[in-house]
């Protein structure tokens, strides 16, 4: 009885009693969801253009952040470090395309997925061998500290992260809608064969999307890194991005963003209000359960392409 109360009426009563606190948790959740969105965005970019479910996205975040931190620790100015890291990620895109994607063209989805797991192993080892396995602190002078908005209090840092993410998404949207390459990318995402037949080079497009998601990984890595320190656990973020993709749909950029926000918010609210009754740390699996329930009712996600086939 007591347990039932603690997971049904208790939390609701708590929310009603102190809506300000609820709002604060909600905003905090949404802001941390921005991070999930960023990682999920990298997944979606690659999946749309090449049909590869890139498991290495999380490791790319770690790798980009490690490289960035490593360069800064070599006393390089921030802009140069960012530029160099970008160059490294682009080089990585070339290598991946040449050594992994090209030989595996036309293989089953699961084989490509496994190949990206292989890539993530390589990147993990390489990153830690080059820059060491310790936790690096990353401080690029982002503001932090609480900021008051009426009754609720939010962290300045989260706000900056959200703004950066918004800026990135806006840039990507312009890139996709307004440029020649963006049009080619959308064409490839629509239909590989049709794109090939009008003279779009698939190989080139793959390099571009991998480099772009490398950029997204860098931004995500800087954000996560300045918040939590650059460390191995960054790769785990990739796993959290999977339910985000399910919620948003594998092929939708807005879906990735909305999905990330939903997952972030649900996770925080669940943890704060329902967690204590269930022994805590329920955010480990809450997102997956949410995705599971969601899949049963809407397999294509919020914005994904409708899957006609059903069995």
């Amino acid at each position: 009885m007591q347990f039932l109360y603690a997971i049904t009426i208790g939390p609701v009563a708590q929310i009603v009693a102190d809506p300000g606190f609820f709002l604060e948790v909600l905003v905090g959740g949404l802001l941390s969801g921005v991070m999930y969105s960023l990682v999920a965005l990298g997944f979606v970019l690659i999946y749309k253009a090449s049909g590869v479910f890139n498991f290495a996205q999380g490791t790319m975040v770690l790798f980009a952040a490690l490289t960035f931190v490593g360069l800064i620790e070599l006393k390089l100015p921030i802009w140069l470090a960012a530029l160099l890291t970008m160059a490294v990620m682009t080089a990585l895109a070339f290598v991946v395309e040449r050594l992994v994607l090209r030989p595996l063209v036309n293989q089953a989805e699961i084989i490509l997925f496994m190949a990206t797991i292989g890539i993530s192993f390589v990147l993990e080892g390489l990153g830690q061998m080059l820059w060491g396995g310790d936790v690096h602190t990353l401080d690029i002078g982002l503001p932090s500290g609480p900021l008051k908005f009426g009754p609720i209090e939010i962290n300045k840092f989260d706000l900056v992260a959200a703004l950066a993410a918004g800026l990135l998404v806006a840039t990507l949207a312009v890139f996709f809608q307004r440029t020649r390459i963006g049009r080619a990318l959308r064409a490839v995402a629509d239909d590989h064969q049709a794109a090939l037949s009008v003279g779009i080079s698939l190989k080139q497009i793959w390099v571009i999307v991998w480099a772009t998601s490398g950029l997204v990984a860098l931004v995500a890595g800087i954000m996560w890194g300045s918040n939590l320190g650059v460390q191995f656990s960054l790769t785990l973020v990739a796993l959290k991005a999977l339910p985000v993709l399910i919620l948003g749909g594998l092929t939708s950029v807005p879906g990735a963003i909305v999905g990330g926000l939903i997952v972030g918010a649900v996770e925080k609210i669940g943890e704060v209000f329902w967690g204590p009754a269930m022994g805590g740390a329920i955010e480990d699996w809450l997102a997956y359960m949410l995705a599971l329930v969601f899949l049963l009712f809407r397999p294509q996600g919020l914005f994904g392409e409708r899957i006609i086939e059903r069995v």
Partner: protein
Amino acid sequence: MLYREAGQFKTSYAADQAIFPILQDRIALALLLVVAYVAVPLLANEYWLSTILVPFLCYALAALGLNLLTGYAGQVSLGTGGFMAVGAFAAYKLSTAFPGLHIVLVLLAAGLIAAATGILFGIPSLRIKGLYLAVATLASQFFLIWLFNRVPWFNNYSSSGVISAPPRAVFAHVFVTGPEAQPVGKYLFALTVVILLALGAKNMVRAATGRAWMAIRDMDIAAEIMGIRPLRTKLLAFAVSSFYIGIAGALWAFVYTGSVEPLAFDIDRSFQILFMIIIGGLGSILGSFLGAAFIVLLPILLLNVPGMLGLRIDVSTVTNLQSIIFGSLIVFFLIAEPNGLARLWQIGKEKLRLWPFPY
């Protein structure tokens, strides 16, 4: 020349339906069994038995279970670790709650409990497939591990959260779990369990059950039209697969490590076993064993090679190098032979048939 089945005529239905229709295969298998049951216990030292062979057997059994689900029935699962944990904790709870229960019955019951859990988490497979299903099974992985970590009832309220296998004997005084068990006894016990279950799996996949799974895997709509019930077939695949994986988890906890915490069955374990079946070969019983051997032996090999070459490298570099080489090898294998080691074996057999006159 040696490996040629010309002249081996089948004169009865039983001979025609034998698992190993070729005489040479039967001889090779008998030899392998003799080696596994007689030569290995006599020759292998304790290190080999308890840190390489027993974990290999546990891995092989888990890979076999996952291969039934993913390779034969086509349902991708990333929840292997979770189901192994179910098997391990179910075996622990059963053997501590009913001290008189025989270890074999404990294993079977643990397998059945894992099977029931598998059915529960297999329900989403009725609506989704492929990568979506993989994510759905991640839910089971994280939820189950959380459950065993957080609910103290599962580890009998031990403060560390670690479960230790109570001593149990197969026959009188032949202990296979607990501190008194000898490595040889553990090895032989695990070997017998794995061989019997592998035999069962081999027969299952060549009978109606396995054909139904493969039909669902290859094209579910066509299978449904032919009268295969997707609901039953898919859930059966989840049940049987989880049964195997559950027993593998119980063996892991009881026979291999002796004491285990939920973290031993985390997401990395699931990926590791998925690797085994991809590298070994999807939809192949032999492939599960080859893949398990590859994944178990490769890190040990990589760890020892620098020492053998007389190079001095510090440990962290070795682990990093290991992960680089491991990753590259996976990519290399996928490019060179996407159908896995089992396919290489098949090609080898074809070549052997023609050797030494390839025309």
